[in-house]
């Protein structure tokens, strides 16, 4: 016979006949100031909620503030010029299809602790 105390599974060390601990719910960070980058060429993090933002073939909600046309009026960071190049380095008149889906690289933040310890530090010369 195996005692519940001796066995640890994905469920943790909770006995089978007891209700397991409810996972702590993480909340998206509220609107804040821009978050500084941790290293050169890091895609900037999104310092606000993006729940319900439409990013599909028909419309990109992010660009309604972050586009070159709108960023002054909205006070948002403008989309980088690098996003107007295709993979061969040709300049395009519109945001490149490969850079169109913002949340592939740019992500909002939650109050979650990093799963793995990380001691990475950027070199001083390219720190911002």
């Amino acid at each position: 016979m195996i005692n519940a105390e001796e066995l640890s599974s994905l469920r943790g060390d909770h006995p089978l006949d007891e209700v397991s601990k409810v996972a702590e719910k993480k909340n998206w960070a509220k609107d804040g100031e821009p978050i500084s980058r941790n290293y050169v060429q890091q895609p900037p993090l999104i310092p606000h909620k993006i729940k319900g933002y439409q990013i599909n073939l028909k419309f990109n909600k992010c660009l309604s503030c972050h586009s070159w046309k709108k960023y002054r009026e909205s006070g948002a960071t403008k989309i980088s010029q690098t996003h107007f190049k295709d993979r061969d380095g040709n300049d395009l008149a519109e945001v490149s299809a490969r850079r169109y889906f913002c949340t592939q690289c740019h992500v909002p933040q939650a109050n979650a602790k990093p799963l793995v310890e990380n001691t990475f530090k950027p070199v001083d010369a390219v720190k911002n």
Partner: protein
Amino acid sequence: MTLGKKIFSGTLITGFILGIIFWGGFNWTLELTNSLSFCTSCHEMRDNVYPEYQNTVHYSNRTGVRAECPDCHVPREWIHKIIRKVEASRELYHKVVGTIDTPEKFEQYRLTMALSEWKRMKSVDSRECRNCHDYESMDFVDQGRRAVKAHSTGLDEGKTCIDCHKGIAHQLPKGWEEAAAKAGL
């Protein structure tokens, strides 16, 4: 009491009762057509706009207050409601001829329908939004930095809710920005 008086008071009482029945019945029936379940009883609404709306804050949120189809699309005051309901009777014709009976057709008409609804909302200063959202009761201190900026300047510029809050309950069609700008919306 003379016979004449009896007939008069009899007619009066009958008329009163019939009035209650007919008027009440009319209003009751009207209200039946003013619900989420009625709106989504046709596949045009149930398969296209309804699933989109289910992902938005007006369907599901922190406090559990829900704004359903008629809360935004049908005016609350009786006279405006009746006018809107009469206008909407043309939807019965389009239901019969199947103007938007496939997802492709719906998509084709989405911009036209969106523009028409934005126009209606702008023309009444976003009246239906304001049934719940009142500038006077907004606490800017509790709003995020982006919202504060937009709302405090929006007030001064005489903007109305729908000027900025388009596509909050349904998906936006391709090219809507240009079309809306052209229509002055």
